[in-house]
């Protein structure tokens, strides 16, 4: 419940960003504050080294951070669901090949792989979504495959097959609707990971240099020496926002898992 409230709050902030803060405050030219001013009445969360209000940056950053989180998750879900359902449904050598491939992606350390991919593809919003999407699907694929294996043995699937239903019909009408709740619960947990990944990649300088996300604010702060200069107001707002959003997604994910998975409920 608390998770939903936090998520709702950040969603509203992201959507209402133009009302809450003037977007001119994002460009170094339009900056009005002093260099690294601590929090004051005019700038409730202080200013960065270019004189921009950290509050304005954080409010606008929520848009890109949440957007990357959602789109990367959607991509990862599609890949994971397609591979998981196909492997579980067809079985045989195709399943073995696909699951080997999945295992391999599961073993490879995420960040080095993402760094290599992102550095080859170049810095852009689309590429960062692509990189997070193609590095975060294996967990979903395994879950979906396991569920598909159990669903496809159920009597009603056999009945539909006996009536002459083709593979496509069986997958879209019988398997997918039964696997979907699981995919959905998993999605919420993946969003949390995707937002953290965006932050990490942007921090390492692989984000879109023209757009401000919570990760790029932290990148600027690190490169601007926020830590050694003791500019805590530059680090705290984006960091706390990340922690709250990720925490909220994790809590919602677990709550949903408990509702959809009666076995997890406390005895």
């Amino acid at each position: 419940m608390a998770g939903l409230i936090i998520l709702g709050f950040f969603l509203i902030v992201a959507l209402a960003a133009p009302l809450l803060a003037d977007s001119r405050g994002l460009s170094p030219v339009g900056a009005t504050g002093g260099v690294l001013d601590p929090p004051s009445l005019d700038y409730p969360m202080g200013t960065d080294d270019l004189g921009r209000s950290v509050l304005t940056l954080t409010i606008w950053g929520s848009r890109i951070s949440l957007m990357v989180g959602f789109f990367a998750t959607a991509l990862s879900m599609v890949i994971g669901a397609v591979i998981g359902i196909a492997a579980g449904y067809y079985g045989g050598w195709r399943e073995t090949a696909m699951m080997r491939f999945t295992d391999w992606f599961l073993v490879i350390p995420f960040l080095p792989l993402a760094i290599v991919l992102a550095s080859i593809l170049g810095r852009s919003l689309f590429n960062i979504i692509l990189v997070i999407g193609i590095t975060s699907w294996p967990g979903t694929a395994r879950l979906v495959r396991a569920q598909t294996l159990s669903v496809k043995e159920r009597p009603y699937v056999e009945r539909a097959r006996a009536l002459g239903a083709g593979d496509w019909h069986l997958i879209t009408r019988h398997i997918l609707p039964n696997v979907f709740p699981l995919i959905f619960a998993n999605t919420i947990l993946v969003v949390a990971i995707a937002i953290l990944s965006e932050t990490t990649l942007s921090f390492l300088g692989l984000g879109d240099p023209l757009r401000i996300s919570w990760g790029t604010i932290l990148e600027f702060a690190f490169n601007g020496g926020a830590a050694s200069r003791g500019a805590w107001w530059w680090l705290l707002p984006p960091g706390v926002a990340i922690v709250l959003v990720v925490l909220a997604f994790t809590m919602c994910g677990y709550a949903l898992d408990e509702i959809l998975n009666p076995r997890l409920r406390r005895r």
Partner: protein
Amino acid sequence: MGARRYLTAKVVQALFTLAFVLVFNFFLFRILPGNPAQILARQRRLPVEAVRELERDFGLKDPLPQQFVNYAGDTLRANFGISFKFRRPVGEVIQGRIWPTVLLVGVATIGSTVIGLLIGIYGAWRRGSGFDMGSLGFSLVTYAMPEFWLGMILLILFASTSGLELFPLGNIRTPGGPASGIAHLLDVGRHLFLPALTLILALLGEYALIMRSSLLDVMGDDYIVTARAKGLREAQVLRRHAVPNALLPTVTLVALNLGFVVSGAITVETVFSWPGLGLLTVEALQAPDYPLLQGLFLLFSVAVIVANLIADLIYGYLDPRVRVA
């Protein structure tokens, strides 16, 4: 018999994964938008003749299968090419930076495992107490925290001029400081403290959570009831019967987690300018230095695959049931 088959199966699986990494590494740097020579040319605005020459140097004019054989042979002979940035063989550059990372990751892994297990055990033992709730909340919050952000906050608190100034801002030793003896070790320890603390805090929560849930699982088993019924004290039940059995999943998690620790080391080393492989990765990324990046990626992957293999073997040794299945 069962043990040997289990062993062989796991080793073959690891070798298979290694081969896959090799193929992937080869194609990634050759097929994705343009080849290395074109990427280089785009970065440095080379004339066409220079690009042709680079292509010849990389052997990019050979047929693809021939290129792969060359690449695989070079890799097996530990020849990873020349780093663009350092103008030295990649293997040499990496070798010079391995030990700081081993030290950091080693200390962080041991520290987080020991503390995490103790917190998990105490939490499960006193389930529902204030300590238990507090440690659960702490675990969730540290999980949600980017570890490099935590590192920067610790820097402000304990190292910056507006903080306590207890620890240095970065690096592994004081420039011009003692180079040997006890003084050197103390100096390194002082530099190691904050980065290691950051990684320990980031990893701790997960171990505590796993240990707690695994111990709660075990505590409901019949043999625990028997142990209590025969009059053992609670501490003995815990130490002799519950904890050893609950340790199983945690032991493997520690090894499986190495991939995550490596990722953490990359950003934490960056924050603390710790001169290890993580910082080297970021330097290679900023250059961009593709041969070095390729070598590092291969090394990280191999390290994680080997750790996974070790985890499987330990698990098979600790839990004979796994070997049969």
